């Protein structure tokens, strides 16, 4: 078996250890005898065929402005893939831009892919710190958030989880992230996948199922260190 991973804008949107998410996907496949290939997508390039998992990270404002146009260009293609069930993880900056729009604090509206039913507005302060959330499908998820954008879920949009400790989408309604089909959008980095192997395995499992067209079971890995690191992270103060 062979899985193809698409890393969106690996040069401009790679803050906060995003590389660790890709590494986690690769290693957890490798440990199960699944081969992986990572394709990076930079502005202007075409998306290769046969992508099984899509990943996109966070960036600084300057990085974000360099990819906005390209993201709108490839949005229909991404939408088609996600509608078809391609597992996707977008974090922080790209989570925001997977929504309808991002409105800066100066009132400028940046168009997103509109794949996730969310809107985001620039906020007055940064929401920073350790965060723990509860997700219906994947249990407790822990990470670190650092964002000034405040995100609101549009009616009918599912949150990725409920905030246990931290700010989440907007610091008000206790929601964190958004989910549509197998696409997860979230503010959690840390990076998110190493300490939350269930999220990584969800992406891998869905990719295998989509690729083979039938139900799959992943081989169980020894996650003792992962679980211990997860526990330590939850115990840390905000």
């Amino acid at each position, binding site marked *: 078996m062979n899985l193809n991973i698409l890393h969106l804008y690996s*040069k401009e949107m*790679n*803050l*906060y*250890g*995003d*590389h*660790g998410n890709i*590494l*986690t996907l690769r*290693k957890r496949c490798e440990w199960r005898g699944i081969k992986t290939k990572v394709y990076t997508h930079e502005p202007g390039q075409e998306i290769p065929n046969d992508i099984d998992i899509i990943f996109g990270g966070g960036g*600084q*404002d*300057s990085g974000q402005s360099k990819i906005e146009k390209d993201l709108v260009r490839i949005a229909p293609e991404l939408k088609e893939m996600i509608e078809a069930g391609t597992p996707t993880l977008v974090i922080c900056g790209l989570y925001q831009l997977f929504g309808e729009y991002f409105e800066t604090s100066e009132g400028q509206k940046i168009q997103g892919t509109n794949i996730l039913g969310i809107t985001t507005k620039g906020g007055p302060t*940064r929401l*920073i*710190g*350790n965060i723990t959330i509860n997700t219906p499908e994947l249990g407790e998820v822990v990470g*670190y958030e*650092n964002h000034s954008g405040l995100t609101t879920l549009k009616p009918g949009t599912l949150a990725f989880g409920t905030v246990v400790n931290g700010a989440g989408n907007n610091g008000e309604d206790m929601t964190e992230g958004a989910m549509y089909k197998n696409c997860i959008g979230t503010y959690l*980095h*840390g*990076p998110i996948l*190493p*300490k939350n192997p269930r999220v990584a395995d969800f992406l891998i499992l869905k990719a295998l199922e989509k690729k083979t067209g039938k139900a799959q079971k992943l081989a169980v890995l020894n996650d003792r*260190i*992962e679980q*211990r*690191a997860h526990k*330590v*992270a939850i115990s*840390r103060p905000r």
Partner: protein
Amino acid sequence: MEKLSILLGKSVQKVTRLRGNGGSALPGLVIERTNPKFVRNILSKLPYGVVVVSGTNGKTTTTKIVTELLEAEGLKVFTNKTGSNFVRGVISAILKNIKLSGKFDYDIAVLELDEAHAVKFCEVVPINYALLLNVQRDQLDRFGEIDHTAELLQKVAENAQKAVVLNREDPRVGKIKAKHKVFFGLSDTLLKKFPSDDNLLDKADIHSSTQPALVTLEKLNGQKASYHIKTSDYQTNLTLKGIYNAYNAAGALALVSTILPETDSANFVQTLSKVESAFGRGEVFKINDAEVEILLVKNPSAFQLSLASFVDDEHDYMIAINDNIADGHDISWLWNVDFKALPSVKMVSGIRATDMALRLKYDDVKVEKIEENLETAVDKFATANKKPKRIFTTYTAMLEIRKIISGKSLL
């Protein structure tokens, strides 16, 4: 007014010290409230003025180098050695060194300030020179994004009245605008060994800047360094270890050559060869006949460079990771470091020991023991055998380790 403040400040210092509070912040706070112009009035009288050293990595050691280079030329240098690098810390340092009569017997002040405090400091005190080292990912939870940090340094640069010394190889520092700029740089060969955050994982498109530099680090072979200063080459054997220290020394050389343009560069290089690293940055301790070296790593670039300089087959390795405020709460930066150069790690410790172990697992580096408690970890690691040892550590873990080791060893 100044004499009154000095008396007041010194009294507060004495009282807090008697009460065992170390007395770093309170005297500064009292003076700040009662006499906001105190620092300005004292420091602006110095004949050579004030020098600010800022940037993400290497401030402490670079400040130490600059201080020793100037002292060797006969200048009396006031500096904030305690590392309490904010305005209040500077006030406390002044109070300790000023006479009750108001006599402040120095020629120049060389101050280490972090990016945010450097800006605040410049709003209060006029500065003559700034040495800006780098902008790297460090404690993003405190400063936000690195582009913002670069803007802070831009403000510092605008305040420097005589000259700003800039690292031309840093993509953000190299672009800083100032009236009188002086650059330091690297030769093309060395630049490739020096990944910045932007190309940490992608070393293909590294090229040296075309800005002419006053000082360049041309070659580094073990401790043998070769610098090009103005128009000539100088070779020397450094006591300082690590490529980043050798490079920061180039920044220090560029700064002192600007402050004292008449001095023979050979003198500076001669002094530089004897400068030792600062507190907790490459210090070597002896425990049970085994040498234990402590290497401070605060962010991905520093860690990567440390691994490039300090990994071999002779040493045993330990890594200690804390996530207190001074370390940065966000430890995701560990995933921006490539650890594959490490043969194995005998011990991981600190509050986030397990996170470190997890990171190493994903780079296929074997971890022999995870022990969160630093005292137990240092004890086991240091006394296991007589092999030389190295500990990579974040800031607050370094302070703790140093205390633990000092209790056991001959310094």
